[in-house]
């Protein structure tokens, strides 16, 4: 069942219950409710449904569900007061219009009616926000569980022992040949290991941080592949305003090398390009090679992970795409918005 369906069921069942309850009270307390009183009660119920629905749309529009903290309380209280006043005015109007004599305008009557209305809006808000609070909590838990799993798998296979041990082997040879470069390579390898191990600490990191990991990674691969690997980085200056899941770009770049360039006798090119347009960032990784999907082509572990992570973080707002460009290149494309949903 999706959320909209749950919402409408609660709305209709809840308010119908309210209407029936009130009508039953009439029957019990008064002798016989006149037709006008039933009409007034139904109109009031209709008003509740419509006003709370508008209220709900505004909650979504103003992004209150993303805050869900005590900071919201003053805003909710204010909304309840505004809604209650409008509802009370509406009730007065229909009582005048339908000329229901029972409604004398005594202070007692006004206070009791008004507080009943406040109570209804309060109850509605309580149910609505508590429900969302728990939903968010649940999805945060799901997210955490998934991240743990991803992290574990990453450590197991994506850490890529091939890369590390080959890297170490190259560094060992480099110690004789070019000690300065060897020192740099050790630092870079440490950075990558540190980033991989500390992955679960943050859901998102600034793009500049991610880029520096990617740079370290590419530098190290350059030590291994030497002239067989050419890298080009075109980074849009606005990219640094964005946040990305840690190691996401690095994983994709690594895939491009592992499945693309590493298999080519003469090596190839890897190009990392970012573009920023209308508050979304497009990250494009273009590498020599060909992407094969299907039973023979390996749908890399990295791809499945990336798609899942994007979905968890951005819902349907992020896009992932991988395709061949001509016969020589593979393009991996990720589009992410500036805001995550969780």
């Amino acid at each position, binding site marked *: 069942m999706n959320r909209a369906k749950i919402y409408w069921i609660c709305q209709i069942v809840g308010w119908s219950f309210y209407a029936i309850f009130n009508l039953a009270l009439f029957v019990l307390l008064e002798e016989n409710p006149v037709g006008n009183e039933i009409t007034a009660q139904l109109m009031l119920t209709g008003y509740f449904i419509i006003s709370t629905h508008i209220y709900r749309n505004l909650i979504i529009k103003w992004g209150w569900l993303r805050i869900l903290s005590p900071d919201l309380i003053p805003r909710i209280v204010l909304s309840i007061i505004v809604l209650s006043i409008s509802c009370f005015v509406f009730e007065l109007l229909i009582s005048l219009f339908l000329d229901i004599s029972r409604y004398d305008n005594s202070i007692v009557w006004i206070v009791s009616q008004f507080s009943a209305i406040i109570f209804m809006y309060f109850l509605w808000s309580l149910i609505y926000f508590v429900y969302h609070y728990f939903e968010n909590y649940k999805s945060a838990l799901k997210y955490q569980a998934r991240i743990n799993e991803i992290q574990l798998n990453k450590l197991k296979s994506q850490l890529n022992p091939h890369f590390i*041990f*080959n890297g170490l*082997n*190259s560094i060992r040879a480099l110690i004789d040949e070019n000690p300065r470069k060897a020192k740099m390579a050790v630092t870079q390898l440490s950075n990558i290991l540190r980033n991989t191990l500390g992955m679960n600490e943050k859901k998102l990191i600034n793009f500049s941080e991610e880029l520096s990991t990617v740079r370290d990674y590419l530098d190290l691969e350059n030590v*291994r592949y030497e002239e067989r690997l050419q890298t080009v980085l075109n980074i849009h200056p606005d990219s640094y305003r964005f946040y990305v899941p840690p190691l996401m770009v690095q994983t994709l770049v690594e895939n491009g090398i592992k499945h693309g360039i590493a*298999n*080519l*006798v003469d090596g190839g090119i890897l190009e990392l390009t970012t573009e920023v347009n209308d508050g979304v960032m497009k990250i494009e990784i273009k590498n020599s090679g060909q992407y094969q999907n299907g039973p023979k082509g390996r749908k890399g572990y990295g791809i499945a992970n990336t798609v899942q992570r994007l979905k968890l973080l951005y819902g349907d707002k992020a896009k992932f795409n991988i395709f061949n460009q001509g016969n020589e290149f593979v393009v991996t494309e990720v589009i992410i918005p500036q805001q995550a949903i969780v």
Partner: protein
Amino acid sequence: MKALIVDDERLARKELSSLLSDFKKIEVIGEAINADDAYQKVQELNPDLLFLDIQMPGKSGFDLLEMLDSVPQVIFTTAYDEYALRAFDVNALDYLLKPIQKERLKESLNKLIERQTARTQAGVAKTSHLGVTDQVFVKDGDRCWFVKLSEVRLFESEGNYIKVYFADNRPMIHKSLNALDEKLDGRSFFRASRKHIINLSWIEKIEPWFNGGLVVQLKGGQNVEVSRRQAARFKDMMSL
């Protein structure tokens, strides 16, 4: 021993070379940067030993071994205990993990030199033909073997493939029986018929068959028919 280093990374080749410079008995006669390059250098330089990286661009180390008729001694070098290596019988395999530990390298080389010495003492001169002390690389699906030809009882042709019988295994290799027949040493192997080549040292019993043919029983109980034409040659060969 003449060794050829096969690795696609320059620094890895350099590192291994420098490690090997301390071993007087090993002479690095060349380096190859991929499987095709290695194939040519093996033909040209005829090394006794290959240091072979498995993961290389284009063709893998296994592909190289499949291309070679007779494979020299092989020490695999790999960065990680790979799934691919589990295809081998553990004893049949020498591999070194990169970065290579000098001690491990020393052990592997000692084992190898021992084996090589035993082979030289057996008095086998290197010929252009494949003799019983030569080994071939056989890959069947996920499993791999280095098989000494002395262990092979029988080659049986099946379409474009040859079934290789040794111990309890009968993997297939993609070759023609005629091509193989030309390469094998005639003193050890005999073309029994259009379909079979037998290893003479595995023969247990010979019995006459119809039309002047023969049936040869191999150790392990397998019977192979020798055609009439070949039977005459066989008798010639076996008689003093």
